[in-house]
């Protein structure tokens, strides 16, 4: 359609994966070394929200409403790739983690937010079933949690 930028689409398709990744680095979206940062085994193998927080080095969490879920769906179109977008409105946000409660390992991603960076992250998570999805915000050394239910349905009966 006319709204779609076909030129940009084609350019990106033709560019190699390396080139695209390079572009992200150049734009400051990914800091060199991020991909090689130490793997937090404890956090990423945790089964519960509390265990993830512990794995990340925290002690307790408090609920927050200062999170904007952007284009995160209420019902997933495809459980295999559910887009999740989180913006933290909490001052001094240091990191944003995304947790899918019913997944075998709850923690899907952790993003470090360097000072002065817009605390907005987007990723895609895999979900096998309807679950609470948590945005875990570390701000000023404290952990805060916002929750959104994302439904994964069998589909096929609307309308």
């Amino acid at each position: 359609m006319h709204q779609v930028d076909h030129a940009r689409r084609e350019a990106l398709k033709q560019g190699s994966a390396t080139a695209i990744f390079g572009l992200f680095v150049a734009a400051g979206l990914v800091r060199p070394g991020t991909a090689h940062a130490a793997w937090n085994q404890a956090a990423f193998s945790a089964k519960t929200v509390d265990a993830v927080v512990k794995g990340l080095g925290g002690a307790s969490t408090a609920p927050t409403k200062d999170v904007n879920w952007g284009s995160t769906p209420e019902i997933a179109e495809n459980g295999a790739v559910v887009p999740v977008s989180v913006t933290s409105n909490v001052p001094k946000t240091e990191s944003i983690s995304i947790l899918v409660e019913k997944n075998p390992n709850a923690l899907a991603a952790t993003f470090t937010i360097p000072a002065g960076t817009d605390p907005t992250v987007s990723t895609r998570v895999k979900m096998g079933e309807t679950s609470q999805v948590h945005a875990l915000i570390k701000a000023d050394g404290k952990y805060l949690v916002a929750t959104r239910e994302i439904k994964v349905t069998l589909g096929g009966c609307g309308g």
Partner: protein
Amino acid sequence: MNRREFLNVLAAAVAGGLYLDGKEAAAANPAAGLYDFKVFGNVHLLHFTDCHAQLLPVYFREPNVNLGIGEALGRPPHLVGQALLQHFRMDPRAARAGYPRDLARNLGHAFTHLDFARAARLYGKTGGFAHLATLVKKLRAERPGALLLDGGDTWQGSATSLWSNGQDMVDACKLLGVDVMTGHWEFTFGAKRVEEVVQKDFKGKVDFVAQNIKTADFGDPVFPAYVIREMNGVPVAIIGQAFPYTPIANPRHLVADWNFGIQDQNMQKTVDEARAKGAAAVIVLSHNGMDVDIKMAARVTGIDAIMGGHTHDGVPQPVIVRNGTGQTLVTNAGSNAKFLGVLDLEVRERRVVDFRYKLLPVFSNYLAADAEMQALIDRVRAPHKAKLDEKLAITEGLLYRRGNFNGTLDQVILDALLEVKGADIAFSPGFRWGTSILPGQAITLDHVMDQTAITYPHVTLNEFTGEQIKTILEDVGDNLFNPDPYYQQGGDMVRVGGMSYTCDPNAKMGARISDMRLAGRPIEADRKYKVAGWAPVAEGAKGEPIWDLVAGYLRAKKVIKPVTLNLPRLKGMEGNPGIAR
């Protein structure tokens, strides 16, 4: 007695669920005066939605079960029968909107299921594009500059639309003079087909708008989010909201490269942008469904009216939702070309200051057929007419689909599936489209296609465990009864044949369905059962089209006796005004 007295008597008869002798009432033209009312304001919007490709006049029975749960309890559109009539008759807005009061009462037949078969004989059929065209022309002549909005579900629902890939409806809508459109079932013809129509047929004529469809890869808008049209010197923005759950409720592979969703933050951005560009009135043409529209109206500010569809609710007056900066009118204009919504707005100093709204039933007997549109319809149908007019069987009872749990027409489909496939249990999707057939009428192939014409019509036979069956019912039940409308998909409950169950709509997902029984014996979680169904959303599904199976069943039966509806036992719904006998 004079005409006014006569109408009052008739109104009382309607309210009491009784009708006068058909001949007498028809001679007095119960719809006289309905289409003559004063033009108000300087911005005019005509709105039809969910016509489901019904080019000819039809019977369409409104539901007697449309339960509201949580906040929606007792709120339009979750009022049926008497409760609906009482709610709107006592509402002073009904009088303010300009219906003669007796006439407003007299519209009971159009808006309710009450005494349907008898009333349908009295009033005749509703809708039909040739009759709708006459009404649109009349209203447009009175309202220079009026825009005609098509809320979608226009290209699907009949044999001729399916067999022409939606082309008959595309041509009919262009002739009708549609200005702006959004969509849902249109997408079941595939993304490419929709793009083709929008780029070729609609170019320079119809604006197809949707703020909530983006490409899956880069999130680029697929269609313009809105269009600004000037009317009597007033710039008016029409924002499109396509059905948010198209890839979930319908096969995802048909729109594999697009993402949908409600996207109310992007809606706010779009409203703000349209206002910044000078729009003095902002209208959302929505296919969200009414409960979703009501929630969206409370969350997004700056919208003057959301003109909605999808849930097929014929709601006589708007629901007024107050929000952060003002108020938003939420309307829903029914289905099957049975209604035309007329919203007149008074815009002064770049602001909507007052409104009048009417949802006009399109009584085919009281609106002459437009010759040009009738010619188009005849041309479209001619090659298929003999086939479609085949009388498959006679029905002794009233056949209809609409209702939260089951309809008599769905029961016939379920009975056919059980018998032909030799299944223990049958499922039929909770679609809200499909016309009604009166007792004594012949069921034609045309009627069967009205209930089944989709691009994924395959009949399936699966072995499901009792646990899987329960999961399916819970899943669909949550799409209907989740107290948060953003988690609803707007269809009705899957129709179930062969198996009885209990449903507690107020319970949480996983606890709504209980006491599942087959021939009186409890369904066992681990045991496998043969389950027949149709309309699989998975890519590559196979099976004969459902219309062949149903047509074969009807031909063999010749006469369809009044069916017994397989309905769940309901818990916790006593006193809910969304259910009536």
